[in-house]
């Protein structure tokens, strides 16, 4: 780790000001950023911890929408979203281990956009809205490839707003070492459409499997998925844990299982 300063503002406004310094960076739960710092892979001059901002920690239902504060931990989402949106609560409950879930935040996960992060698949599948200190961004416009998002320098994810589906499920096939998803699929069924968000698999980061969405919109059944051809293996990540062909195959299996498990 290199030396850095740290601030702990108690409001979003103070945080935005603190982030005005050159080389300043927000710190959420630190579950991604701290290991990066320990390996000396980043050298921020100042960390602006968001954990003391009470206004960024909540799970709130407003009609058909579930709004989650950007500083809300995975553990809190797992508990408090359970009755409103069991698919999302199930996703949160399987991120990392208890220590990770009690520190890591939805805002940090969405901001980081790791190609194997779980939340982005739900955000895409649901057509969530990413709310920042300056604007609202549709999920389809927000995720822009591995580790790339629409966020500007110093912009803070303050809330993620999910339209609550009729039924949903997240299927996570774990990479055996990190236990991040090797392939994760979020299936969300609404009255008028079905969303299928896929993480862990593609060289372009999280994506919507539109063929499956179309097929499932007409017939929300595992059989509807069985007939589809898997996404192109050459677009998929190939590494020591899985070939592109294997990942492409798993997308089909996980989607099918997600449909069967949706509740």
């Amino acid at each position: 780790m290199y030396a850095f300063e740290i601030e702990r503002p108690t409001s979003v406004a103070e945080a935005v000001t603190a982030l005005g310094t050159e080389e300043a960076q927000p710190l959420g739960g630190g579950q991604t950023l701290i290991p990066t710092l320990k390996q000396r892979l980043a050298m921020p001059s100042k960390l602006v911890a968001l954990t003391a901002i009470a206004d960024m920690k909540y799970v709130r239902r407003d009609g058909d929408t579930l709004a989650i504060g950007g500083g809300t931990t995975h553990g809190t989402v797992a508990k408090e979203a359970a009755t409103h949106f069991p698919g999302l609560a199930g996703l949160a409950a399987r991120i990392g281990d208890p220590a990770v879930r009690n520190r890591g935040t939805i805002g940090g996960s969405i901001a980081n956009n790791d190609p194997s992060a779980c939340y982005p698949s739900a955000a895409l599948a649901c057509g969530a809205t990413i709310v920042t200190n300056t604007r609202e961004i549709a999920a389809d416009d927000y995720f822009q490839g591995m580790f790339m998002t629409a966020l500007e320098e110093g912009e803070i994810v303050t809330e993620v707003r999910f339209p609550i589906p009729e039924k949903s499920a997240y299927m996570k096939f774990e990479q055996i070492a990190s236990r991040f998803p090797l392939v994760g699929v979020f299936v969300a069924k609404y009255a008028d459409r079905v969303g299928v968000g896929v993480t862990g698999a593609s060289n372009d980061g999280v994506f919507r499997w539109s063929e499956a969405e179309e097929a499932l919109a007409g017939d929300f059944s595992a059989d509807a998925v069985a007939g589809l051809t898997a996404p192109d293996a050459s677009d998929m990540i190939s590494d020591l844990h899985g070939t592109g062909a294997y990942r492409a195959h798993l997308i089909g299996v996980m989607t099918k299982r997600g449909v069967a498990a949706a509740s």
Partner: protein
Amino acid sequence: MPKDHGIGASTKRREDVRFLTGAGNYTDDVNVWGQAYVAFVRSDVAHGTLNGVDTAEAEAMPGVIRVFTGKDFEGVGSIPCGWQITDRHGEPMKEPPHPVLAQGKVRHVGDPIAAVVAESLQEARDAADAVVADISDLPAVVDMKQAVASSDTLVHDDLGTNLCYDWGFVEENREAVDKAIQEAAHVTTLELVNNRLVANPMEPRVAVGDYSRADDMSTLYTTSQNPHVIRLLMGAFVLGIPEHKLRVVAPDVGGGFGTKIFHYAEEAFCTFAARQIKRPVKWTSTRGEAFMSDAHGRDHVTKIELAMDAENNFTALRTETYANMGAYLSTFAPSVPTWLHGTLMAGNYKTPLIYVNVKAVFTNTVPVDAYRGAGRPEATYQLERVIDKAARERGVDPMALRRQNFITEFPYATPVAVEYDTGDYNATLDKLEEIADLAGFDKRRAESEAKGKLRGLGINCYIEACGIAPSNLVGQLGARAGLYESATVRVNATGSISVMTGSHSHGQGHETSFPQVVAEMLGIPEDQVDIVHGDTANTPMGMGTYGSRSIAVGGSAMVRATEKIINKAKKIAAHLMEAAEADIELKDGAFSVAGTDKSVAWGDVCLAAYVPHNYPLEDIEPGLEETAFYDPSNFTYPSGAYCCEVEVDPETGHVTVERFAAADDFGNVINPMIVEGQVHGGVAQGIGQALLENCVYDETGQLLSASYMDYAMPRADNVPMVTVDHSCQTPCTHNPLGVKGCGEAGAIGSPPSVINAVIDALHSGGFTHVTHIDMPATPNRVWAAMQG
């Protein structure tokens, strides 16, 4: 009623109190006043010419005391290798130098190039970033077969080859074996990889070097399984410090698994640097450094052929193995694929003809050396896999095929130079059938199938050689050390006892099980006996702990020393009771005169020895302290049978271990609970090897699995409850306790049954074209195998 103390009792581990309450004293807890900190600059390329190292900028940085490079070590010895192998042609193995810091070339990612010593760790790391190594990249040697086939790129230019040795065993059998295989009714052939593993003890390595100008004394605190061995190797071969001026301390050690046997460059560096700068010098490995500097394990590529007659009797066995040595020869590396592997190729079977060929190869990777089981898991895996394959090819029951070929008469001299003293392989297999509930398998399979899963059953037998080792024998085989063990039993004036042992406990529970033996022999409470270990200053010269040798060899030394104590105490008791020595009996902590009611308590005898007012001073010395060195006359041969049941998800290839049972013959057992724990841990590591762990280099020699994000350790949910039985006991015939050792059995015995079970599951699902899947059987590999 099970015993509640002494030999055979499941006494709770006394050391766990301090480990579990944060009161342990590990090497990183050692902080010496005035210590400086080291950061190593390590090569980030696998192979290159080291043209020079520019340290000027680093030296000018705040807090930097000194920056060392390979040049500083030109007058210093090479990190030595403790075992010399003689090849098929009678030539000694190739033994290249291994400098403490790289000289002329870097040979693996992680090879230390320079070391910065500074006032703080932060300053040392900052300055290490500023050291500039001028390296011209060379192509990397990674694949073993290519390394041998072509000499275009050499890890060590002076050797002219990447082949360390080409070993044949037993060379005289070669032609007979070839002929038997040619003439056999059936030959089963299997090519397989024994995957490279990283031991990953919970505690990373640490070294603290200290130097006292007052008495010219160097002290090294280090994470070691054998401090005396480190003192000898480092003192005599690297730094030229005689033993009386060098103390090595290995305090609490948080797991070793073999990887903390070896003498490492960082230990020599800290000891050397402390003498240079006249200040203590401390290095604590990061987890990332551990992946690229701790010796790795396994990494064999093997072809095995098993010949049978028409009645399925094994007639001959031939194996050819490429064994990775990595870039340098680690301390015991050459012995692992040879004497710890070839001599075990008979397994539990009476195959009359065996030939083992091993080609040890230098590559641009981290050195490979002993890891829990060391050679024996590699032998067991290939043998028990090829037998399973043979059973399928011949359409016979895999257990029946094994039973038919079992060795049943003991002692048994194998065709690979060892003599098994005892064993009963049918007994452990019978026991396994019972504890694994093989009778209920069909029902469990039907239940799995109802859930859409394939269920497979795999069994294997194993034999291992431990209690390492008879010194005269290993001397003939190339060991540059003896492998005895020592113990000093110091009886204090009021009867409490300190046992100074050359064994070292780093998780095995010696502090509990060793006192059980002494307490049993003397008839006193266990808590009156303490074990002292880990410090060359207060323990007799001993070879340490590995090769499941501690109770068999170290325990035997302790028994011998305690026998001497009893003999002397009887003399004292005879004097006190004015009786003949021959009439004195020791029972329940008191000496009595046979046939009388005269007795004297243990404590009174001890007191008499130290306050010799009424004492036979003309016949014996005062005091009650004895030392014994014990050199075993043979290896010990634990054996057993293991059973694994897996479920395979046919859509994803994901394997889960549903049940695991282990029936072991460890001879006599001192503490059944500790033995059970050793088997649990070993099986967890074996399941890890079979399904999860894999150390992977790419073709440029970059380590791809360099953190826990990519290197999969087994976790609690990967391992089922393991059913363990050790009631089949054929006591070892040649050590005083009749013990065989249990530390490695789990890791040796488990991988084949896991893979056998996976293959069985796939066959049950109709994937009969799959005859083998290399470890680790990851979901992707299993799925790919199913695709054909």
